[in-house]
């Protein structure tokens, strides 16, 4: 314990890790990913797509497992698996006999099981499975950073262009078209952007912890923000803050970064819920 207090007693707890090249890359990736995660996360939470987003993330797992052996770029394999999931979900719920949440639960379990079997018995992925499921923020390549930057730019552009469409459609689905809003096109763009954002955060937090960046910060901000602008801003800021805090925690306590960010995000949500209930009680 003494060493931890020594570390905290000077700013070296912050500056030492950030002098390391792999930590610098992780920091840049975290800050870049916070942008699409916070912006899209806001709509995921407002449109009640959290379970869907989590399932899309999980559904990429078998895609990631086969990417290496099949010689496909992991983001493409992940995107393919995610789109396959969305296609199957839409097919299963078309008749109305299966509800969307039941179908989502079924497909996400199937994807996880398929990935586990492929990883353990077909391709013998070994220790790599942990990395696919929980991410490897400390081992990102140039391609991961470029993808994060591109998706951040796309999320900013789409939010600027579509914020009114998404707001009107989400708030008042029955009345949106009468307001001159192109609701269907907006919804497709939202889902497409959600898919590429999931793919972009996979290297950092893995298939099982996508919600750590995509849902938790926005859900936390939701408890405190009173306007849409404040919610979007707070979700991005929280995603960045929790990401950096989780990264530092992981470095100092030698934890895997994805789970560390998840733990910090959970703590942040609990604090915000407490603050929100105190505010309501007064």
């Amino acid at each position, binding site marked *: 314990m003494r060493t931890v207090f020594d570390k905290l007693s000077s700013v070296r707890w912050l500056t030492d890790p950030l002098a390391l090249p792999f930590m610098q890359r992780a920091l840049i990736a975290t800050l870049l990913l916070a942008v699409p995660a916070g912006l899209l996360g806001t709509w995921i939470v*407002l449109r009640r797509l959290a379970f869907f987003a989590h399932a899309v993330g999980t559904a990429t797992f078998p895609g990631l497992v086969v990417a290496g052996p099949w010689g496909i770029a992991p983001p493409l394999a992940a995107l393919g698996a995610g789109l396959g999931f969305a296609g199957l979900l839409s097919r299963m719920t078309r008749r109305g006999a299966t509800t969307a949440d039941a179908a989502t639960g079924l497909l996400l379990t199937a994807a996880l099981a398929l990935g586990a079997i492929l990883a353990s018995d077909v391709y013998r992925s070994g220790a790599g499975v942990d990395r696919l499921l929980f991410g490897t923020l400390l081992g990102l390549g140039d391609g991961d950073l470029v993808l994060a930057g591109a998706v951040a730019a796309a999320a900013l552009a789409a939010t*600027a*262009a*579509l914020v*009114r*469409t998404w*707001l*009107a459609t*989400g*708030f*008042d*689905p*029955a*009345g949106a*078209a*009468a*307001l*001159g*809003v192109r609701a269907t096109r907006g919804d497709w763009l939202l889902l497409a952007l959600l898919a590429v954002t999931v793919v972009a955060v996979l290297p950092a937090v893995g298939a099982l912890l996508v919600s750590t960046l995509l849902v938790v910060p926005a859900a936390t901000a*939701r408890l405190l*923000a*009173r*306007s*849409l602008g*404040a*919610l979007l801003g707070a979700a991005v800021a929280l995603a960045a803050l929790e990401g950096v805090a989780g990264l530092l925690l992981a470095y100092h306590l030698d934890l895997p970064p994805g789970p560390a960010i998840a733990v910090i995000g959970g703590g942040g949500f609990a604090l915000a819920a407490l603050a929100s209930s105190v505010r309501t009680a007064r």
Partner: protein
Amino acid sequence: MSAPGAGIEVTGLSASYGTGAPALRDVTFTAADGQAIAVLGPNGGGKTTLFRALLGELPATTGSVTVRGATAYAPQTERSRLDFPVSALDVALMGAYARTPWYRRIGAGDRALARDALARVGLADRAGARFGALSGGQRQRVLIARALVQEAGVLLLDEPFAGVDRTSEEAIMRILDELRADGRVLLIATHDVEQARGWDRVLCLAGAQIAFGPPAETLTNAVLEATYGEEIVMLDCGNRAVAIQHHSHAH
């Protein structure tokens, strides 16, 4: 804010969802010059289908629909997401979305228009309140303000008095009367037969048009029975009728 020339002409309209049987058949009516029309019928009778056809969201399978003037739709407020972080002013400003390009902020003129519209429906002091925190009647008035910002000549109101307290009901009645005086055309979907008697015309729908005309001539017991079937209950020896409301929201 007047709306001269606003009107609706519907001739022989049938409309269906997908390839199925028509959800609504044989609708023929006209409305113009500040008329208010009650659209009366049971759940699933075609009120929402008619509105969607008038908004151009559902193509006519037969017949024709002509609407003169911008058309606004005020849905039942509990169908909107009351937990969204939007204020009454934010919702009123949605009326300006269609004329604001995506790369522009909503203009100062439209902001002023939205504040004026909220003042006109008596909610100037609640502009900053969260939409979901308002009462049902206040929310309905915000949606009417939104239609004013759209500068709509034709207003389609879906059950504007459902779940509304007495004070708000009177306020909404007063606003709708003012809108008629502007020359706007109102279509008011309602379950309430007594309510329907107060408007200029009544259009009875039960999958097909049952009747259209001035309420006094149109709302006969025969018409009401054809409109509501088993759901109608006659009171006062047939002088009053009450439709039984089933609280399902299938349309």
